[in-house]
Protein backbone atom coordinates (compact mmCIF):
# COMPACT_ATOMS: atom_id res chain seq x y z
CA UNK A 1 0.00 0.00 0.00
CA UNK A 2 1.56 3.29 -1.10
CA UNK A 3 1.84 6.32 1.17
CA UNK A 4 -0.21 8.42 -1.30
CA UNK A 5 -3.11 6.04 -1.17
CA UNK A 6 -2.91 5.96 2.62
CA UNK A 7 -2.92 9.76 2.56
CA UNK A 8 -6.10 9.83 0.54
CA UNK A 9 -7.58 7.28 2.92
CA UNK A 10 -6.63 9.45 5.90
CA UNK A 11 -7.93 12.60 4.24
CA UNK A 12 -11.27 11.12 3.24
CA UNK A 13 -11.88 9.37 6.52
CA UNK A 14 -10.47 11.48 9.34
CA UNK A 15 -9.36 14.91 8.20
CA UNK A 16 -12.07 17.53 8.25
CA UNK A 17 -12.14 19.74 5.18
CA UNK A 18 -10.85 23.22 5.98
CA UNK A 19 -12.84 24.78 3.14
CA UNK A 20 -16.60 24.68 2.82
CA UNK A 21 -17.98 22.41 0.14
CA UNK A 22 -20.10 24.84 -1.89
CA UNK A 23 -21.88 22.12 -3.84
CA UNK A 24 -22.96 20.63 -0.53
CA UNK A 25 -24.08 24.07 0.65
CA UNK A 26 -26.15 24.54 -2.50
CA UNK A 27 -27.66 21.07 -2.17
CA UNK A 28 -28.56 21.72 1.48
CA UNK A 29 -30.09 25.11 0.71
CA UNK A 30 -32.08 23.73 -2.22
CA UNK A 31 -33.39 20.86 -0.08
CA UNK A 32 -34.54 23.25 2.64
CA UNK A 33 -36.09 25.76 0.26
CA UNK A 34 -39.82 25.66 0.67
CA UNK A 35 -41.95 28.18 -1.16
CA UNK A 36 -41.93 31.60 0.48
CA UNK A 37 -44.41 34.43 0.53
CA UNK A 38 -42.71 37.44 -0.99
CA UNK A 39 -42.62 40.41 1.33
CA UNK A 40 -44.97 43.26 0.47
CA UNK A 41 -43.39 46.47 -0.87
CA UNK A 42 -42.09 48.80 1.91
CA UNK A 43 -44.75 51.42 1.23
CA UNK A 44 -47.58 48.91 1.68
CA UNK A 45 -46.06 47.63 4.93
CA UNK A 46 -45.58 51.20 6.13
CA UNK A 47 -49.23 52.02 5.36
CA UNK A 48 -50.37 49.01 7.38
CA UNK A 49 -48.11 50.00 10.28
CA UNK A 50 -49.27 53.62 10.16
CA UNK A 51 -52.91 52.59 10.38
CA UNK A 52 -52.25 50.21 13.27
CA UNK A 53 -49.93 52.69 15.04
CA UNK A 54 -52.57 55.43 14.81
CA UNK A 55 -55.20 53.14 16.30
CA UNK A 56 -52.81 52.00 19.06
CA UNK A 57 -51.72 55.57 19.86
CA UNK A 58 -55.36 56.65 19.96
CA UNK A 59 -56.16 53.82 22.39
CA UNK A 60 -53.16 54.79 24.55
CA UNK A 61 -54.35 58.42 24.68
CA UNK A 62 -57.82 57.26 25.74
CA UNK A 63 -56.30 55.08 28.47
CA UNK A 64 -53.96 57.84 29.69
CA UNK A 65 -56.80 60.37 29.66
CA UNK A 66 -56.93 63.07 26.99
CA UNK A 67 -56.77 66.71 28.00
CA UNK A 68 -60.17 68.32 28.44
CA UNK A 69 -59.65 70.84 25.65
CA UNK A 70 -58.23 68.37 23.12
CA UNK A 71 -60.94 69.15 20.59
CA UNK A 72 -60.40 72.89 20.85
CA UNK A 73 -56.64 72.51 20.63
CA UNK A 74 -56.88 70.90 17.19
CA UNK A 75 -57.78 74.38 15.91
CA UNK A 76 -54.89 76.06 17.76
CA UNK A 77 -52.04 77.05 15.41
CA UNK A 78 -49.32 76.46 18.02
CA UNK A 79 -50.70 73.02 18.80
CA UNK A 80 -51.07 72.21 15.10
CA UNK A 81 -47.50 73.34 14.32
CA UNK A 82 -46.05 70.98 16.92
CA UNK A 83 -48.38 68.17 15.86
CA UNK A 84 -47.47 68.66 12.20
CA UNK A 85 -43.76 68.54 12.97
CA UNK A 86 -44.04 65.30 14.95
CA UNK A 87 -46.39 63.74 12.40
CA UNK A 88 -44.00 64.62 9.55
CA UNK A 89 -41.10 63.01 11.44
CA UNK A 90 -43.22 59.95 12.21
CA UNK A 91 -44.20 59.50 8.56
CA UNK A 92 -40.76 60.07 7.03
CA UNK A 93 -38.91 58.00 9.63
CA UNK A 94 -41.48 55.21 9.36
CA UNK A 95 -41.21 55.08 5.57
CA UNK A 96 -37.41 55.01 5.80
CA UNK A 97 -37.47 52.27 8.44
CA UNK A 98 -39.42 50.03 6.08
CA UNK A 99 -37.51 50.95 2.93
CA UNK A 100 -34.12 50.32 4.60
CA UNK A 101 -35.34 46.95 5.84
CA UNK A 102 -34.96 45.28 2.43
CA UNK A 103 -31.73 44.85 0.47
CA UNK A 104 -31.16 47.64 -2.07
CA UNK A 105 -34.02 49.61 -0.54
CA UNK A 106 -31.74 52.16 1.09
CA UNK A 107 -32.46 55.61 -0.35
CA UNK A 108 -29.85 58.28 -0.95
CA UNK A 109 -28.08 60.03 1.89
CA UNK A 110 -30.13 63.16 1.23
CA UNK A 111 -33.43 61.32 1.63
CA UNK A 112 -32.14 59.56 4.75
CA UNK A 113 -31.37 62.96 6.26
CA UNK A 114 -35.00 64.14 5.92
CA UNK A 115 -36.22 62.90 9.35
CA UNK A 116 -33.17 64.50 10.94
CA UNK A 117 -33.96 67.77 9.19
CA UNK A 118 -37.56 67.46 10.40
CA UNK A 119 -36.28 67.01 13.97
CA UNK A 120 -34.33 70.24 13.58
CA UNK A 121 -37.48 71.94 12.32
CA UNK A 122 -39.38 70.65 15.39
CA UNK A 123 -36.61 71.96 17.67
CA UNK A 124 -36.53 75.26 15.77
CA UNK A 125 -40.31 75.70 16.19
CA UNK A 126 -39.94 75.17 19.95
CA UNK A 127 -36.84 77.36 20.35
CA UNK A 128 -38.27 80.17 18.24
CA UNK A 129 -41.32 80.40 20.49
CA UNK A 130 -39.39 80.55 23.77
CA UNK A 131 -40.17 83.79 25.62
CA UNK A 132 -37.65 86.51 24.84
CA UNK A 133 -35.78 88.53 27.44
CA UNK A 134 -34.21 85.65 29.34
CA UNK A 135 -31.52 83.25 28.22
CA UNK A 136 -32.69 79.84 26.96
CA UNK A 137 -30.72 78.02 29.64
CA UNK A 138 -32.35 79.99 32.45
CA UNK A 139 -35.76 79.24 30.96
CA UNK A 140 -35.03 75.54 30.71
CA UNK A 141 -33.72 75.42 34.28
CA UNK A 142 -36.94 76.99 35.50
CA UNK A 143 -39.15 74.38 33.85
CA UNK A 144 -41.01 72.23 36.36
CA UNK A 145 -39.94 68.60 35.99
CA UNK A 146 -42.58 66.57 34.19
CA UNK A 147 -41.45 62.95 34.01
CA UNK A 148 -45.07 61.94 33.45
CA UNK A 149 -44.76 63.36 29.91
CA UNK A 150 -41.82 61.06 29.24
CA UNK A 151 -43.89 58.15 30.51
CA UNK A 152 -46.83 59.21 28.32
CA UNK A 153 -44.57 59.36 25.26
CA UNK A 154 -43.02 55.98 26.05
CA UNK A 155 -46.37 54.35 26.83
CA UNK A 156 -47.94 55.65 23.63
CA UNK A 157 -44.92 54.63 21.55
CA UNK A 158 -44.50 51.18 23.07
CA UNK A 159 -47.07 49.13 21.15
CA UNK A 160 -46.40 50.76 17.73
CA UNK A 161 -42.68 50.16 18.35
CA UNK A 162 -43.23 46.47 19.09
CA UNK A 163 -45.44 46.15 16.04
CA UNK A 164 -42.82 47.77 13.84
CA UNK A 165 -40.05 45.62 15.32
CA UNK A 166 -42.08 42.53 14.52
CA UNK A 167 -42.70 43.69 10.96
CA UNK A 168 -39.07 44.67 10.42
CA UNK A 169 -37.81 41.34 11.73
CA UNK A 170 -39.66 39.65 8.87
CA UNK A 171 -37.52 41.66 6.47
CA UNK A 172 -33.74 41.79 6.14
CA UNK A 173 -32.38 45.09 7.46
CA UNK A 174 -28.78 45.05 6.32
CA UNK A 175 -28.07 48.35 8.09
CA UNK A 176 -29.68 47.36 11.36
CA UNK A 177 -28.70 50.45 13.36
CA UNK A 178 -30.06 52.81 10.73
CA UNK A 179 -33.32 50.88 10.40
CA UNK A 180 -33.68 50.60 14.18
CA UNK A 181 -33.00 54.32 14.56
CA UNK A 182 -35.70 55.24 12.05
CA UNK A 183 -38.10 52.77 13.66
CA UNK A 184 -37.47 54.19 17.13
CA UNK A 185 -37.82 57.76 15.89
CA UNK A 186 -41.10 56.98 14.09
CA UNK A 187 -42.57 55.24 17.12
CA UNK A 188 -41.42 57.88 19.60
CA UNK A 189 -42.59 60.84 17.57
CA UNK A 190 -45.91 59.02 17.31
CA UNK A 191 -45.75 58.81 21.10
CA UNK A 192 -44.94 62.52 21.33
CA UNK A 193 -47.88 63.30 19.08
CA UNK A 194 -50.14 61.25 21.32
CA UNK A 195 -48.68 62.87 24.45
CA UNK A 196 -49.65 66.25 23.06
CA UNK A 197 -53.29 65.23 23.49
CA UNK A 198 -52.62 64.25 27.10
CA UNK A 199 -50.22 66.95 28.37
CA UNK A 200 -51.88 70.25 29.28
CA UNK A 201 -48.64 72.22 29.42
CA UNK A 202 -48.16 74.02 26.10
CA UNK A 203 -45.08 76.03 27.07
CA UNK A 204 -42.29 75.80 24.49
CA UNK A 205 -39.63 75.28 27.15
CA UNK A 206 -41.59 72.38 28.62
CA UNK A 207 -41.96 70.78 25.21
CA UNK A 208 -38.29 71.26 24.43
CA UNK A 209 -37.16 69.68 27.68
CA UNK A 210 -39.83 67.06 28.37
CA UNK A 211 -41.03 66.10 24.89
CA UNK A 212 -38.32 66.79 22.32
CA UNK A 213 -35.27 65.81 24.43
CA UNK A 214 -36.71 62.47 25.65
CA UNK A 215 -37.65 61.59 22.07
CA UNK A 216 -34.08 62.22 20.92
CA UNK A 217 -32.51 60.32 23.83
CA UNK A 218 -34.94 57.39 23.61
CA UNK A 219 -34.37 57.23 19.85
CA UNK A 220 -30.63 56.83 20.41
CA UNK A 221 -31.28 54.11 22.99
CA UNK A 222 -33.81 52.46 20.68
CA UNK A 223 -31.35 52.50 17.78
CA UNK A 224 -28.72 50.79 19.93
CA UNK A 225 -31.11 48.15 21.28
CA UNK A 226 -32.92 47.68 17.99
CA UNK A 227 -29.71 47.15 16.07
CA UNK A 228 -29.08 44.05 18.20
CA UNK A 229 -32.60 42.76 17.65
CA UNK A 230 -32.66 43.45 13.93
CA UNK A 231 -29.13 42.37 13.04
CA UNK A 232 -29.11 40.11 9.99
CA UNK A 233 -27.05 37.03 10.65
Amino acid sequence: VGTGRLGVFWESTFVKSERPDLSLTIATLVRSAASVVALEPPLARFARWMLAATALAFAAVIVLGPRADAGVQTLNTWFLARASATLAIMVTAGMLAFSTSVPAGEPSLLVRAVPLAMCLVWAAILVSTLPTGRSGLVLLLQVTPHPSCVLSIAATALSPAFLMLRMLRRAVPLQATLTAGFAALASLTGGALGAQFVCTNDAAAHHLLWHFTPVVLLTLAGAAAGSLLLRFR
Partner: protein
Amino acid sequence: VTPKQEVYAAALMLRAQKGEEEAYAKLLVLLTAAGRSYVRSRTGRPVPWIDDAVQEILVAVHQARHTFDGRRPFAPWFYAIVRNRFVDVVRRERRIRHHEITGTEWPDPPSADERTSRVDMDAVRHALALLPPRQREVVEAIKLRDERVRDIAARLAMTVTSVKVTAHRGYRTLRRLLGVDLREE
Protein backbone atom coordinates in the same frame (compact mmCIF):
# COMPACT_ATOMS: atom_id res chain seq x y z
CA VAL B 1 -24.00 39.76 -13.42
CA THR B 2 -24.69 40.91 -16.98
CA PRO B 3 -28.11 42.42 -17.91
CA LYS B 4 -29.07 39.14 -19.57
CA GLN B 5 -27.99 37.17 -16.52
CA GLU B 6 -29.91 39.59 -14.33
CA VAL B 7 -33.19 38.90 -16.14
CA TYR B 8 -32.43 35.18 -15.99
CA ALA B 9 -31.55 35.36 -12.29
CA ALA B 10 -34.71 37.34 -11.46
CA ALA B 11 -36.84 34.76 -13.28
CA LEU B 12 -35.09 31.94 -11.42
CA MET B 13 -35.57 33.70 -8.08
CA LEU B 14 -39.29 34.18 -8.70
CA ARG B 15 -39.56 30.46 -9.46
CA ALA B 16 -37.44 29.66 -6.40
CA GLN B 17 -39.79 31.72 -4.24
CA LYS B 18 -42.55 29.36 -5.36
CA GLY B 19 -40.48 26.42 -4.17
CA GLU B 20 -39.05 25.16 -7.49
CA GLU B 21 -35.90 23.33 -6.47
CA GLU B 22 -34.39 23.09 -9.95
CA ALA B 23 -34.65 26.84 -10.54
CA TYR B 24 -33.23 27.53 -7.11
CA ALA B 25 -30.27 25.21 -7.69
CA LYS B 26 -29.52 26.93 -11.02
CA LEU B 27 -29.76 30.32 -9.38
CA LEU B 28 -27.40 29.38 -6.54
CA VAL B 29 -24.86 28.02 -9.01
CA LEU B 30 -25.04 31.30 -10.94
CA LEU B 31 -24.72 33.33 -7.74
CA THR B 32 -21.77 31.24 -6.58
CA ALA B 33 -19.84 32.37 -9.65
CA ALA B 34 -20.99 35.97 -9.25
CA GLY B 35 -20.16 35.99 -5.55
CA ARG B 36 -16.74 34.50 -6.13
CA SER B 37 -16.03 37.03 -8.85
CA TYR B 38 -17.08 39.89 -6.54
CA VAL B 39 -14.83 38.72 -3.71
CA ARG B 40 -11.90 38.27 -6.11
CA SER B 41 -12.39 41.74 -7.56
CA ARG B 42 -12.59 43.34 -4.11
CA THR B 43 -9.59 41.58 -2.60
CA GLY B 44 -7.49 41.89 -5.74
CA ARG B 45 -5.63 38.72 -4.87
CA PRO B 46 -6.47 35.11 -4.09
CA VAL B 47 -7.54 34.74 -0.49
CA PRO B 48 -7.96 31.47 1.39
CA TRP B 49 -11.39 32.46 2.72
CA ILE B 50 -13.05 33.05 -0.65
CA ASP B 51 -15.27 29.99 -0.34
CA ASP B 52 -16.22 30.97 3.21
CA ALA B 53 -17.35 34.35 1.90
CA VAL B 54 -19.28 32.77 -0.98
CA GLN B 55 -20.92 30.34 1.41
CA GLU B 56 -22.01 33.22 3.66
CA ILE B 57 -23.39 35.02 0.61
CA LEU B 58 -25.41 31.98 -0.46
CA VAL B 59 -26.84 31.47 3.01
CA ALA B 60 -27.72 35.17 3.23
CA VAL B 61 -29.45 35.05 -0.17
CA HIS B 62 -31.36 32.00 1.06
CA GLN B 63 -32.50 33.79 4.22
CA ALA B 64 -33.42 36.95 2.33
CA ARG B 65 -35.06 35.38 -0.71
CA HIS B 66 -38.56 36.41 0.41
CA THR B 67 -37.51 40.08 0.28
CA PHE B 68 -36.82 40.02 -3.46
CA ASP B 69 -39.47 41.98 -5.29
CA GLY B 70 -39.92 40.82 -8.89
CA ARG B 71 -40.82 44.35 -9.97
CA ARG B 72 -37.37 45.58 -9.03
CA PRO B 73 -34.02 44.63 -10.60
CA PHE B 74 -32.21 41.63 -9.23
CA ALA B 75 -28.60 42.81 -9.30
CA PRO B 76 -28.88 45.69 -6.77
CA TRP B 77 -30.74 43.37 -4.39
CA PHE B 78 -28.13 40.66 -4.75
CA TYR B 79 -25.10 42.93 -4.51
CA ALA B 80 -26.49 44.71 -1.44
CA ILE B 81 -26.44 41.33 0.30
CA VAL B 82 -23.05 40.46 -1.16
CA ARG B 83 -21.50 43.74 0.05
CA ASN B 84 -22.97 43.27 3.51
CA ARG B 85 -21.67 39.71 3.86
CA PHE B 86 -18.32 40.56 2.32
CA VAL B 87 -17.73 43.34 4.84
CA ASP B 88 -18.64 40.98 7.68
CA VAL B 89 -16.30 38.27 6.43
CA VAL B 90 -13.43 40.74 5.90
CA ARG B 91 -13.90 42.08 9.45
CA ARG B 92 -13.96 38.57 10.85
CA GLU B 93 -10.86 37.55 8.90
CA ARG B 94 -9.02 40.70 10.02
CA ARG B 95 -9.94 39.92 13.62
CA ILE B 96 -8.71 36.36 13.28
CA ARG B 97 -5.51 37.50 11.58
CA HIS B 98 -4.94 40.17 14.22
CA HIS B 99 -5.39 37.78 17.11
CA GLU B 100 -3.98 34.57 15.80
CA ILE B 101 -1.30 35.30 13.26
CA THR B 102 1.65 37.60 13.71
CA GLY B 103 2.84 38.21 10.23
CA THR B 104 2.11 40.37 7.28
CA GLU B 105 1.36 37.55 4.89
CA TRP B 106 -1.69 35.36 5.09
CA PRO B 107 -0.38 31.87 4.65
CA ASP B 108 -1.64 29.73 1.82
CA PRO B 109 -4.04 27.06 2.97
CA PRO B 110 -2.30 23.73 3.42
CA SER B 111 -2.78 21.40 0.52
CA ALA B 112 -4.15 17.94 1.05
CA ASP B 113 -0.61 16.60 0.74
CA GLU B 114 0.69 18.93 3.43
CA ARG B 115 -2.10 17.95 5.76
CA THR B 116 -1.56 14.26 5.25
CA SER B 117 2.21 14.68 5.52
CA ARG B 118 1.65 15.71 9.12
CA VAL B 119 0.16 12.28 9.70
CA ASP B 120 2.56 9.54 10.54
CA MET B 121 1.86 7.12 7.69
CA ASP B 122 3.76 4.38 9.45
CA ALA B 123 1.37 4.76 12.37
CA VAL B 124 -1.62 4.44 10.03
CA ARG B 125 -0.07 1.35 8.43
CA HIS B 126 0.67 -0.12 11.87
CA ALA B 127 -2.87 0.62 13.09
CA LEU B 128 -4.31 -1.09 10.02
CA ALA B 129 -2.23 -4.18 10.79
CA LEU B 130 -3.64 -4.22 14.33
CA LEU B 131 -7.24 -4.35 13.17
CA PRO B 132 -9.10 -7.66 13.54
CA PRO B 133 -8.67 -9.62 10.26
CA ARG B 134 -12.26 -9.15 9.03
CA GLN B 135 -12.26 -5.42 9.78
CA ARG B 136 -8.84 -4.95 8.14
CA GLU B 137 -9.96 -6.80 5.05
CA VAL B 138 -13.11 -4.69 4.68
CA VAL B 139 -11.36 -1.35 5.39
CA GLU B 140 -8.52 -2.09 2.97
CA ALA B 141 -10.96 -3.27 0.30
CA ILE B 142 -13.09 -0.13 0.55
CA LYS B 143 -10.48 2.54 1.17
CA LEU B 144 -7.35 1.22 -0.53
CA ARG B 145 -8.55 -1.04 -3.33
CA ASP B 146 -11.73 0.90 -4.22
CA GLU B 147 -13.80 -2.27 -4.25
CA ARG B 148 -17.55 -1.94 -4.28
CA VAL B 149 -19.37 -2.89 -1.08
CA ARG B 150 -21.54 -5.34 -3.02
CA ASP B 151 -18.46 -7.12 -4.41
CA ILE B 152 -16.82 -7.29 -0.99
CA ALA B 153 -20.00 -8.75 0.46
CA ALA B 154 -20.07 -11.42 -2.26
CA ARG B 155 -16.39 -12.25 -1.87
CA LEU B 156 -16.49 -12.50 1.93
CA ALA B 157 -19.94 -14.15 2.03
CA MET B 158 -21.39 -11.25 4.02
CA THR B 159 -24.46 -9.07 3.57
CA VAL B 160 -24.00 -5.52 2.28
CA THR B 161 -25.20 -4.16 5.64
CA SER B 162 -22.72 -6.24 7.63
CA VAL B 163 -19.89 -5.03 5.35
CA LYS B 164 -20.86 -1.45 6.11
CA VAL B 165 -21.12 -2.15 9.84
CA THR B 166 -17.75 -3.91 9.84
CA ALA B 167 -16.17 -0.98 7.96
CA HIS B 168 -17.64 1.49 10.45
CA ARG B 169 -16.29 -0.55 13.36
CA GLY B 170 -12.92 -0.66 11.63
CA TYR B 171 -12.85 3.14 11.32
CA ARG B 172 -13.72 3.52 14.98
CA THR B 173 -10.96 1.13 15.99
CA LEU B 174 -8.50 3.00 13.76
CA ARG B 175 -9.47 6.32 15.30
CA ARG B 176 -8.92 4.88 18.76
CA LEU B 177 -5.58 3.36 17.79
CA LEU B 178 -4.43 6.62 16.17
CA GLY B 179 -5.60 8.74 19.09
CA VAL B 180 -8.19 10.75 17.12
CA ASP B 181 -10.60 12.34 19.58
CA LEU B 182 -14.03 10.96 18.69
CA ARG B 183 -15.73 13.99 20.24
CA GLU B 184 -14.29 16.11 17.43
CA GLU B 185 -16.54 14.38 14.92
